[in-house]
């Protein structure tokens, strides 16, 4: 029987290296974070239990609320537009010509850049004094717009930058979704005398429903974590008009070293993102359905 017992534990050896790291570096900090959020902790130690005090302070903090509002506003500007553009591009470029292949490459190219490079590029597209748009505006005889220093322009500017950066991945997902529609569905629709519009609304769109939900939810979760664009392009300014939730968390943690307070903000964000992810799983039915034999 000892051979059987040994065989039973053998599998654990294969998963142990990953699980040890995973639990130490991810799961333990996750639990520790929840614990930290109940204490007043700063750089010099301390650690007074304050119960939900950090949360109370957080929900009374106008800076926090502004950063949450900015984040949601950005997500609201980015996600629907991004989803629509990606879908349109996928529909237009889902063909086997060389031109379509090159254009797919063009639209995906920005997605391989890091946020640092994207902001570097867009800083000098958006800047009124040294930017591409500034030059274009001047050439057209208008006064350059201060995209990054005007409170009402800064969020749209960040949204445009983000859409430019992120359009490639959702486009690929839609292309993959289109590839999975069986060709005979189109043939059947043609035999039924369906026109292009009818085919699109009755065959293509319903078949892409799952992909659309997936793109929408993945992007929502991603944009709720928007950080680099805001930190690098505007440092959250002008006067907090572009400070996002993660930037708020970053500043409280690594600027003011209010660890307990920042942990509370992190937990709120975590709950929000988990909610989005769980909604996505609920709507698309994955994963977990096939997690084990």
């Amino acid at each position: 029987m000892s051979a059987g017992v040994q065989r039973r534990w053998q599998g654990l050896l294969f998963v142990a290296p990953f699980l040890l790291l995973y639990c130490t570096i991810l799961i333990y900090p996750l639990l520790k974070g929840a614990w930290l959020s109940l204490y007043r902790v700063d750089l010099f130690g301390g650690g007074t239990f304050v119960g939900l005090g950090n949360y109370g302070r957080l929900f009374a903090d106008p800076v926090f609320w502004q950063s949450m509002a900015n984040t949601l506003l950005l997500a609201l500007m980015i996600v629907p537009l991004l989803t629509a553009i990606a879908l349109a591009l996928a529909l237009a470029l889902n063909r086997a010509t060389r031109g379509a292949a090159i254009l797919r490459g063009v639209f995906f190219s920005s997605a391989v850049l890091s946020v640092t490079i994207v902001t570097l590029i867009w800083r000098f597209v958006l800047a009124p004094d040294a930017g591409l748009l500034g030059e274009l505006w001047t050439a057209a005889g208008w006064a350059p717009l201060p995209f990054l220093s005007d409170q009402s322009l800064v969020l749209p500017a960040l949204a445009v930058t983000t859409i430019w950066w992120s359009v490639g991945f959702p486009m690929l997902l839609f292309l993959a979704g289109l590839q999975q529609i069986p060709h005979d569905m189109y043939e059947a629709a043609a035999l039924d005398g369906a026109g292009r519009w009818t085919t699109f609304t009755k065959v293509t769109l319903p078949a892409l429903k799952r992909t659309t939900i997936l793109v929408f939810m993945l992007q929502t979760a991603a944009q709720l974590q928007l950080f680099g664009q805001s930190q690098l392009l505007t440092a959250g300014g002008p006067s907090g008009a572009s400070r996002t939730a993660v930037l708020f968390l970053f500043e409280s943690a690594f600027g003011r070293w209010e660890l307990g307070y920042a942990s509370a903000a992190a937990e709120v964000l975590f709950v929000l993102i988990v909610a989005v992810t769980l909604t996505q799983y609920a709507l698309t039915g994955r994963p977990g359905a096939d997690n084990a034999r």
Partner: protein
Amino acid sequence: MRADRLSPVAWALVLLGAAIMLAPLVWTVLLSLKANAELVGNSGAALHGPYTLQNYAAIFGTSQTMRWLLNSAIVSLGTTAGVLVLCSLAGYGFARLDFPFRRTLFVLVLLGLAIPSQAVILPQHQLFATLHLHNSYPGLILPGLTTSFGVFFMTQYMKAIPTELDEAAMLDGASRFRVFWKVILPLTVPAQSALAVFTFLGSWNDYWWPLISATRSDMYTLTVGLAAAQMNYAQTSGLGFLMAQAVFASVPIFIVYLIFQRQIIQAMAGAALK
């Protein structure tokens, strides 16, 4: 692929979109080819000559950019190698072997798909400080190894390989590890390369963790180094040089992208099917 033709209006829109995609990139390259002095107060000069490579020469000459490139390469390759080893082992374990708490542990791993890195950053930072791992390569690499997606991806791929192969190998006298190493692992090369490219890109472009963990400029990766450079470019070396750094830093990733386009697309589609 559909065969019907796109209307001219749609084509025009697509081409306009492509122009919007490309214009900032072209603009960046043009700026990088101009002498810094010429651009002061007049970035429009980038639209015409004379062009020069002096900014690129400066990267090789004096700046820390080469050091950051090296750091990025070490961290990205280290992360990629680590992810492949850990996820292949774990994937085989979850796909093939039965052991106590297997389902529970797999659910625990899946949970990681929903944990954003921001939610754990503070305790992670404390943990690495306690272990004196900040400003070190292991410190920069380790968090990247805890990828639930990698384990999930490898598990799914290995489940699709017939178990008859494992059984045949065991009847051939191979140990479990030898079955994994000699029979199953060679069959996962497509998944390995997709996961490798995906991990490499993610690690190369990661900004969040190195921003927090690498505080000494000699341990910066390219992303953090370029962030620091753009924050205070006005005081330092000038617009042309900054843009040359941006172009220089993107070249490796574009090369990887061009070579491994297929794997990237496959991995992304795989990520979507999770």
